[in-house]
Every structure is written in C-alpha cells, then in structure tokens.
C-alpha cells in the first residue's frame, strides 16, 4: 500500500480571463513549410507526429513554402480570396440584419473563413458534407445562391426550408450540404454512414464530417471514429478547433491530450493538424485526405487550428469570459489578410484591387439581400404558411396530423 497525500480535482482554466493580458505563448506553432508531406498511403503509425505539429504553407512574409505548397493556380487563389471576402461580407450584413430584427439569430465565421472555403475546393460534385453551423463557406465556395441562404435566414416565403429551421441551419443535397442539426455531433457519425454507403455501392463519392473542438467531447464523435476506423470509410473527419465552445476554452474538451488531432491516433486513423487560417494549407491537407478517401485508403482526421474572432452567436457576449483583445493576439493571423498578402507578393493582386473587390462583393451581397427581402423577413412581408408546419413530418400526412392541421385552420 502506497502512502499518499490527499487527492484534489484538476479543473483546467484558460491562460487569461477578462482583465488579463491575452497570452498564446503556450500555442506551439511550427514554421511554415517545416512539416513533411507523406504519401497518402503512408501507414497511420508512421505519421503520428503530424497530429502534434501544424502544417503551414504561408509564412510571415506571405510566401508559400514547403512540401504542401503548389497545388493551386493563380485563378484558384484569387477565387479563394474572393470566397473568403464574400463570406465575411455576408456575415457582416446578416449580423446587421439580425440586429435590425430581420431575423431571430445569426452565427458568423469571422476569422475562420479559410477552413470551409478552402476545403470545398478539395471536393468533387457529388461528395457530401455533414456540416455544423459554422461552415457556410462550403456554400459560398460552391456558388450556392446567397439569396437562398438569406431566404432561409429570414424564414421568408421563399425559404427553401419553409420557416422550419433556425436561421443558418441550411440544407442542400445538390450542393453536397447535409441538413444541419441543432444537436451537436450527431452528423459526424452520419457522415461515416454516408461514406460507408458509397463504399457499399462501389461508388467514388466521398463524405466530409464536421465538428467543433468543443463538440469532439460528444459521444457521437467516438461512434464516428469507431465506425470509420473499422470499415475504413471514405470520409474526411474535420475538427475545427477555434479555441472556444461558447464560453468554454478548448482545454476542457481536449483534456490531457496535446491536440484534438491526437484523438485519431487511438483508432489508427491518420491525423493531421493544420493552420486553419492558411487557405493554402487547408486546401492542401484537404486534398491529401480526399485522395486517401477516394483511393479507398480510408478516413483521415484533420484538426484545423483557428480562432473564433466573433461571438459564439448573436445570443452570446464573449467579453464576459475572455479578454476583448484576445483575437488580436491570436498568432495565426487573419486568413483573408494572409491570402491577400500572398497574392500581392506574387503580383496577382493589389491594395486597389482589394478595395475594389470589397466594394463589388458588398454590392453583390446587398443585391442578394434586397432580392431576399422582397420575399419577406422574419417579422415582415411574405412568410411560410401555417400549413408548412404540418407538411413533411412524414412523406404522407397521417390522419391525426391532418386533423390537427384542420384544427389549426389550414
């Protein structure tokens, strides 16, 4: 029997709380270009280190360096910048719309634009995403009409989801975007199932699962990893580590593991960690994982290291739990500015063109907004019918629902 002192409970805390000096000195960041790029058929056990480093392509000077660079054409890069800028402008307008009472709720992507915008470019038509509420870049980068997004956000008469869903809980099969769930993590294992189905049918389409750092704690994260690992499903398991889960810092979900990517290691799933604010790195890593999936080599787990600059949602005020200036101290910078710098450095872009693009994009967003608002906003103008409450619960309306619909007067 060992003689021991008293036990005590360890409760992790972020380095700084409101009032303190933001401090990310604990965040270890590899030099851009420093992390090797293994072959896609490398054995999981030979590339465990990738779960503990950070794959980066863009360096401080805006150069694209190292083995993960070089996949994107000049046009791709300019398009990528435009997508991120569009998403940012879209967010800004919709945030304002929410403040104006045109919708009940909104969630923005500020600081995380690179993740979903760059990822989308690694997928093919027909592939399926199972997104959370913070991947609208998948839509923007796939040219899904903004006005449709807004119709959904406004719950107006043209809302493709008939007012049934909370704003931003989009769905579009055509655009490879599975209906978003309000229940965290449930979609992660569904993505694995979709990928298994594709494999069962000897198809070539792959799936992408999405989850936040905080939500990796949910049980369905585990279910997904177990099934993906066992059946070697052609799925990309994305973890967006934006440092926060509402008011809870990532250390609570991560616990004693060094990184979220490390969670994959216990399943023999290759796990990469990538600079989520680096459009080129995100894209390169996503392509690597997509190729693995398509070549029937199985799942890949990717942790995107990024930072949630804005509030969790329009219902949240982060100044209550983290220093206001924390986002400025975030060492991986701003994804839009970093790609802009790279493009300018390569002579593909200029400050002037940027300002001009910003104006154009704002116009586009405003035009879309105007069009959407013709169909109504949350509390004004056209709206979905009360009938829509009762439709779509089942393919065919059962008698008891018909009776209720009649009782409601429709």
């Amino acid at each position, binding site marked *: 029997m060992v003689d021991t002192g008293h036990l005590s409970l360890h409760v992790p805390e972020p380095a700084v709380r409101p009032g303190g000096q933001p401090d990310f000195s604990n965040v270890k960041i590899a030099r851009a270009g420093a992390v090797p790029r293994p072959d896609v058929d490398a054995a999981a056990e030979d590339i465990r280190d990738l779960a503990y480093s950070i794959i980066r392509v863009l360096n401080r000077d805006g150069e694209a360096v190292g083995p993960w660079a070089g996949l994107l054409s000049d046009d791709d890069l300019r398009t990528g910048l435009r997508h991120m800028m569009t998403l940012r402008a879209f967010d800004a307008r919709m945030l304002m719309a929410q403040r104006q009472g045109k919708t009940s709720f909104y969630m923005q992507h500020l600081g995380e634009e690179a993740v979903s915008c760059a990822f989308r470019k690694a997928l093919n038509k027909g592939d399926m995403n199972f997104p959370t509420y913070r991947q609208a870049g998948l839509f923007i980068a796939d040219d899904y009409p903004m006005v449709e997004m807004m119709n959904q956000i406004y719950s107006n008469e043209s809302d493709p*989801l008939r007012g049934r869903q909370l704003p931003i809980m989009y*769905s*579009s099969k055509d655009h490879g975007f599975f*209906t978003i769930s309000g229940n965290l993590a449930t979609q992660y294992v569904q993505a694995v199932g979709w990928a*298994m189905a594709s494999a*069962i049918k000897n198809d070539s389409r792959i799936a992408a699962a999405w989850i936040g750092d905080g939500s990796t704690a949910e049980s*369905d994260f585990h279910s997904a990893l177990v099934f993906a690992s066992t059946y070697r499903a052609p799925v990309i398991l994305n973890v967006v580590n934006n440092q926060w889960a509402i008011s809870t810092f990532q250390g609570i979900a991560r616990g004693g593991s060094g990184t979220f990517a490390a969670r994959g290691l216990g399943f023999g799933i290759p796990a990469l960690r990538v600079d989520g604010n680096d459009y080129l790195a995100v894209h390169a890593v996503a392509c690597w994982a997509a190729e693995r999936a398509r070549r029937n080599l199985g799942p890949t787990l990717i942790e995107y290291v990024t930072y949630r600059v804005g509030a969790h949602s329009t219902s949240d005020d982060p100044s209550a739990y983290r220093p206001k200036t924390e986002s400025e101290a975030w060492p991986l910078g701003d994804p839009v500015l970093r790609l802009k710098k790279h493009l300018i450095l390569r002579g593909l872009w200029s400050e002037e063109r940027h300002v001009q693009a910003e104006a154009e994009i704002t116009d586009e967003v405003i035009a879309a907004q105007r069009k959407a608002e013709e169909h109504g906003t949350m509390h004004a103008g056209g709206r979905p019918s009360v009938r829509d409450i009762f439709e*779509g619960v089942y393919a065919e309306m059962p008698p*008891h629902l018909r009776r209720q619909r009649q009782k409601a007067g429709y």
Partner: protein
Amino acid sequence: MARMTMIEAVRSAMDVAMGRDEDVVVFGEDVGYFGGVFRCTQGLQAKYGKTRCFDTPINESGIVGTAIGMAAYGLKPCVEIQFADYMYPAYDQLTQEAARIRYRSNGDFTCPIVVRMPTGGGIFGGQTHSQSPEALFTHVCGLKVVVPSNPYDAKGLLIAAIEDPDPVMFLEPKRLYNGPFDGHHERPVTPWSKHELSDVPDDYYSIPIGKAEVRRQGSAVTVIAYGTMVHVALAAAEDTGIDAEVIDLRSLLPLDLDAIVKSVSKTGRCVVVHEATLTSGFGGEIAALVQEHCFYHLEAPVMRVAGWDTPYPHAQEWDYFPGPARVGRALTDVMEA
C-alpha cells in the same frame, strides 16, 4: 406457403426485401456471421455478402447514426438493436435525427430506415432484457411504430416498413418469437405451427402500416392490445367468458383510430392492455382518445392493464407480467362498472 415462427417470418421479410432491392442492407451487433442472438438474420450474410449484412461495433448510436447517413445516401438500412432495452444510447439519433431529417430539410433528405428491436418480457431477462419502450417512440413525431403479434403480420409489416419512405421502429415481442404466448406461463408452450397466422407466403407481400385488425369479434367490451398482449387478451376473454372484441393495433403510430372508435361505439366499454409500465404509457394516449371520441357511448371508464410502474423484476416476472388473470379481472370490473 410455409409454417413459420415469428423469427423465420422476420428473416424471410429481410430476405425477400434484400432480394428485391439491392439498396436494402442489414446490420447490427452479432447479426452478420452469427445471424443475430435471436437468429433473425441467419443466412443473410452468406446469401447477400458481407457488405450487405454485417456485424457492427457495440454502439447503438453508431448503428442508427450510420444507418441515417446511408439512408441519406440512398440506401434502405434495416438495422437491429439487440434488445429494445439497449436502444437508449441511440435515442438521440432516433428521435432528434431520423425523425427530423425530412422535416428540417423540407424533403431534400429523407430517412427510410427500419430499426428492429426485440421487446417485452417473459423470458426471465430481468430489467434490461424485458422492456417495452414503445411510448418513448409514439411521443416522437416523424417516427412510425409497428408491433406485430404473429408471423404473418411480422413479415408483411416488416416488408412494408423497409419500403416505407420514413423511419419505422419495428418492435418484435420476443416472447412471441417461438409461439403465440398467451400469458399462461404455467401451461406448456404452443408452437406457432399450430396457429393459422403462421401460414406465411414465401414470397413478397406487404401489410399497410396504420391498420388495426380485429382478432376476436365481440359485443360486450373492446380490448385494445398489441404484440404479446393480443394473445393474453384473447385468453382473458376465453377464461372469463366475457364477449370481448379484441383489437390488435399492429401499428401504434400512425394509429387506426377509426377501428377503435368503431368498436368502442358498439361495445360501450374499453380496456387497454400493454406490458409497458402504466404511467405515461401508450395506454394513456389510447384511453384519452377513446374518452374523447366515444364519450357519449361509454358506459364505464376506460380501464388500463399494464406493467407495474417499476423496473421489470427478474424473479417476480409472473407477478409483474399483466397476464390473463389481471386482464380478466379488468374485463370483469369494466363489465360491472
């Protein structure tokens, strides 16, 4: 046409469905090589291959969650939860996902899955091999809930469930797997082969979900039951000599309210029977509907006979099970009320 047990009928339904439609896949714990702990999937892996019938990790949420993903892709998964008592880890996926996919995507995605699960007691399985959780599904819009009481229905309803465009919870009363158990546990077991409803076509047929069946015509009182309790109700009618009309609901959601109202309007009396615990059980819903729709016909309060509001005890199983004596007492009571 063959004489089938309920296990064979369930197996035959999956076999027929898999044979007709390549998109039907079957999986769950121990269902692959072994063919399931109740052997309902025996032979399917050998016949249709490992990628259409396979074993899964022990994770019910994963079973249902992957099935939902497969259904979104376009397959028609028919999965097994080893015992209904183990569906709880999948409850989130069943009620918040499967039941909601069509609605929240406005039909852009759908969820045609079937979740089979053995329910009910009578096998000395104790509190975690005996549960009847149907009321936990009937409260969830978007789900359908089916409970067959015999081999013929089991096959026809399971085929209908697999073909249904929406998620169907398919509850199989395990005490009926091998014979039409009527609650007289002290008597020798009758096999299905002696029962006419074990005459099951080998080929395809289906029974519409949402239609009840009158198992015994009667004029004195309506007994509403499903699954094992159908046979118990029939036994109680015989034992008491009361001329009960016994309705086998077969489908709880959607419910065949017309059949219920028609019968109770005729008899003026009603007893609802289920094995699940009483409070907030599905019997409450039926009693509420009956008094609402047949108020002016009722000559006595609607009575409920159900499992006691306790976990299913192991040793006192027959004191817990609402057998023919308890149902018979309710019949007498409601006639005298």
